[in-house]
């Protein structure tokens, strides 16, 4: 099941919200949310539930064991990890490692086996049969969530969850299970059992959900169709496509990937607010970044902070000298790349950013923004670097990627512009500016301005109140209609 779907909105979400809001206690609400989350997850195949429940069970038992073995804290209240006697520490460590190995091993198996077998077959002609392993949806997200839980228990930052069903709720809650954000256990452990229904939270949740749904249904889907038509990943016709066609298609993809991904986070955060959860932001207008370092503080924040806290810092971060810092960064960025997908282009994408980040660290003063014209230049350069990054990201077939990159500079013998390019621009003359505006904080800025104005102009207040209630609902209506339009599929031949 996906969020931008009529069945999800009008059947699943409706029933879930009505039932969970109507339940009087948090305990009852949690049962409702858990049941709905399991149904949501099982919708893609009931066997996937076994995986989710199994991995959660492993982490549940592992965390309990770690906590059971941990000696009591010293009288001054400090956690006992550092000064614990060796045998307990060893058991704790072993349990942690075993749990991590099982979780990451499962993830690696599903994610990388087919790819690795394919590559080995290509190079060594072995294995002869490449297994076709379907990647279970959401596995990249909930695996990381569970890992964060176990490590936080090990570090003494959170108490182990004694109730299996609550841990399962944390890992499998349909809000963020499938497409993020990667919610840390420490951020929601209190709210799992202790949530308060606030109508203001619910209202903010409605707005946020509407924004996400609108970004997905009204913008991202259309941009995705443009990208698939102009720059198909299969590479059909790309060697003769004009440079402008390739540019417009790649731009559409750049906008699509942000709007699509951030829409899912918006909807997750919105649905979370409607249920009393407060998830952290996952995107902060990444295309407004003024450096690649800044970009990664704005894009998929939950992932980069996960890698920072659970890979970079444990490896030593920047505390073990400069060469080691660069090595740590290399590892983190290689992992970031391949987390996104099994393919050499994903690794290349991660390493591409690693190189740029190292250059920025060494040569760019990130703390003091330069004078305005140079600042604008820096932002433009950042966008250009991100643009080319997405081209690396999009094409698993390196030959196709090469064709696109060369074609952008007319190096394929292709023309600069042609009819297809002209039609693409004309047909989407209004869509692109709206999509670009959606990538900027323009709407919140206007919202803030209107509110400031309304403080002194009383006449504006009723207008603002009506707008703040009506606009999200209008957005939901239009989005639902657009989703219906996806099923438009005319056929040619009919007998009668």
């Amino acid at each position, binding site marked *: 099941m996906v969020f931008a*779907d009529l069945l999800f909105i009008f059947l699943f979400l409706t029933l879930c919200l009505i039932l969970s809001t109507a339940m009087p206690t948090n305990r009852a609400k949690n049962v409702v949310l858990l049941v709905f989350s399991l149904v949501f997850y099982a919708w893609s195949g009931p066997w996937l539930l076994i995986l989710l429940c199994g991995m959660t069970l492993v982490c549940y038992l592992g965390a309990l064991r770690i906590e059971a073995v941990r000696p009591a804290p010293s009288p001054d209240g400090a956690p006992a990890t550092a000064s614990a006697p060796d045998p307990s520490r060893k058991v704790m460590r072993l349990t942690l490692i075993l749990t991590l190995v099982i979780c990451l091993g499962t993830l690696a198996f599903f994610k990388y086996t087919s790819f690795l077998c394919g590559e080995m077959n290509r190079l060594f002609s072995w294995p002869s049969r490449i297994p076709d392993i379907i990647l279970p949806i959401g596995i990249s997200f909930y695996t990381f969530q569970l890992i964060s839980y176990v490590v936080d228990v090990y570090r003494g930052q959170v108490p182990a969850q004694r109730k299996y069903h609550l841990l399962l709720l944390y890992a499998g809650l349909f809000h963020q299970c499938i497409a993020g954000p990667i919610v840390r256990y420490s951020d929601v452990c209190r709210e799992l059992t202790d949530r308060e229904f606030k*109508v203001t939270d619910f209202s*903010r949740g409605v707005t946020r959900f509407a924004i996400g749904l609108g970004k997905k249904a009204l913008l991202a889907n259309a941009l995705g169709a443009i990208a698939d038509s102009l720059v198909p990943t299969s590479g059909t*016709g790309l060697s003769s496509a004009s440079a402008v066609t390739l540019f417009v298609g790649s731009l559409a993809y750049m906008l699509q990937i942000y709007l699509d991904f951030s829409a899912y986070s918006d909807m997750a955060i919105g649905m979370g607010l409607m249920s009393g959860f407060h998830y952290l932001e996952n995107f902060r*207008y990444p295309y407004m970044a003024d450096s690649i370092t800044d970009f990664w*503080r704005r894009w998929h924040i939950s992932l980069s902070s996960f890698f920072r806290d659970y890979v970079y810092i444990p490896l030593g971060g920047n505390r073990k000298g400069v060469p080691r810092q660069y090595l740590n960064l290399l590892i983190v960025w290689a992992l970031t790349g391949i987390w996104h997908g099994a393919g050499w282009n994903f690794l290349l994408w991660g390493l591409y950013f690693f190189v740029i980040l190292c250059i920025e660290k060494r040569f760019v003063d990130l703390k003091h923004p330069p004078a305005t014209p140079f600042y604008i230049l820096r932002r433009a350069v950042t966008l250009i670097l991100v643009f080319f990054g997405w081209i690396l990201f999009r094409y698993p077939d390196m030959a196709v990627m090469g064709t696109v990159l060369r074609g952008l500079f007319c190096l394929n013998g292709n023309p600069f512009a042609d009819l297809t390019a002209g*039609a693409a621009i004309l047909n989407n003359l209004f869509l692109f500016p709206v999509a670009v505006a959606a990538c900027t904080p323009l709407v919140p800025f206007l919202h803030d301005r209107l509110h400031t104005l309304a403080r002194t102009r009383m006449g504006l207040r009723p207008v603002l109140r009506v707008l703040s209630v009506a606009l999200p609902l209008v957005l*939901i209506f239009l989005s639902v209609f657009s989703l*219906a339009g996806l099923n438009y599929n005319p056929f*040619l031949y009919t007998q009668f």
Partner: protein
Amino acid sequence: MEEHPNGFDPIAALLQDPKQNETKPSPGPDKPAPEAESSGLSPWRAFQSRTDYTQKENRRDCGIKLLAFFGVLILGFVIGCLWFLRPAFSEAEKRDLSAYPELTWNSFISGEYTKAVSGWYADTYPLREPMIRVSQTLGAMHGIQTTLVKINERGDEIPDEPNAGPIDPDKVLESETGGEPVSPGGQTINNLYVSGNTAYELYMFNKATSDRYAAALNRAAASLNGKAAVYDLLVPLSYSVNLDPAVWKSLGASDAEAAMNYIYKGLSGVTSVPILDTLKEHRSEYLYFRTDHHWNAYGAYYAYVCFMQKLGLAPTPLSAYTDVRKLDGFLGTLYADAGRPAALEQDPDTATVFRPISTNDIVHYDGDGAKYTTYGIVNGVSKSTNKYLAYLGGDFAYSEIHNPNKHDGSSVLLVKESFGNALAPFLVDSFEYVYIVDYRYYTQMTLSQLVTEKQIGTVLFVNNLVATSASARVNELLRFIG
């Protein structure tokens, strides 16, 4: 939350309820708060009471939003539950809508069942028609839609000469495209160009499939062993006749003339019937439809004339047809495929229908052998916007026509896909017997069996160029040829 370098934190602004967290007094010392003046309270107390009021106001608004949101969800839920209002067929899309999937153990375990349920729910949602209309209107607002380009394939280069060696028509190569079978799934338009009020389907030459097509016809001629004369008539699409070559070349569409020459050169034992030059001479006439990929009766007529000239016979002059009807309001396949653009909708096609002089009676048989006599050779089409159904009443597997005014025993077998429908009525007055086989659906007999049984003297293959590069069409043709 990290402070944004420009000082303005948009996320905080988005999430913050500005009225709840006001701690600063209102700006502008020259604009005192109105309540303070009128209520006699000190400015700070007046401000506080205003903040309380706006908090209450805010909670009320939030309550209204909550109720309205639940209202929308419940409305959608209830409509979705009205199973008896779910449509089964879409007139606009000319297809059956998804049926509720069958629950089997395998489909449940694999997730296919639930996926199909999601698809069924959305595909047959009771208000889908008006919702799709709104969606397409929204889509039209994305920009200026006077020109639409959809290219999903690229054509191969067309060689001057076919390969020297023989081609095995049964061997399907990897480079082939168009492998989808016909109905019930239907077929899609892969490459489309719309300019103003005219839509053009674009043809992309596929060398491997075209070679197999020619080899299939050669096998047909060989299997008949001189029992009947075999002719091949290839139909170019409208862009080859009506559109500026600079435009279709820049779109990457294939050169129809070169493609037809290439295919005709690969034929042996089959007489080719070139029609492109004749069509170009008459291009100012209404040869092709603007909203549909088919040709109009006029285009089919000139093809008939070329065929008769090849046979050395006189074609029926157009002026001889006395019963000529015009069916207005035709919005065809390209209109539907392009997402129903307004420019096409406002200028629909008119299908011209020439009733054969001698008879309008025809006997149809469908793929299962069931017989139909309710359709004429040409028909009025009042219930559908698909006026192409006027020709033969639609696609039937096998049809027979007997001309009562001829007694010379002449017969022709038309082996066709849908383009042959517009051509068939013109053959009626020139032959005593006209047999029609739609090779996509006919499975009762092979070509040589049929020719032997009915003692047919002439076999005419009519295919539009897209069919000659569609792997599935060639496979169906081979199934009929045997």
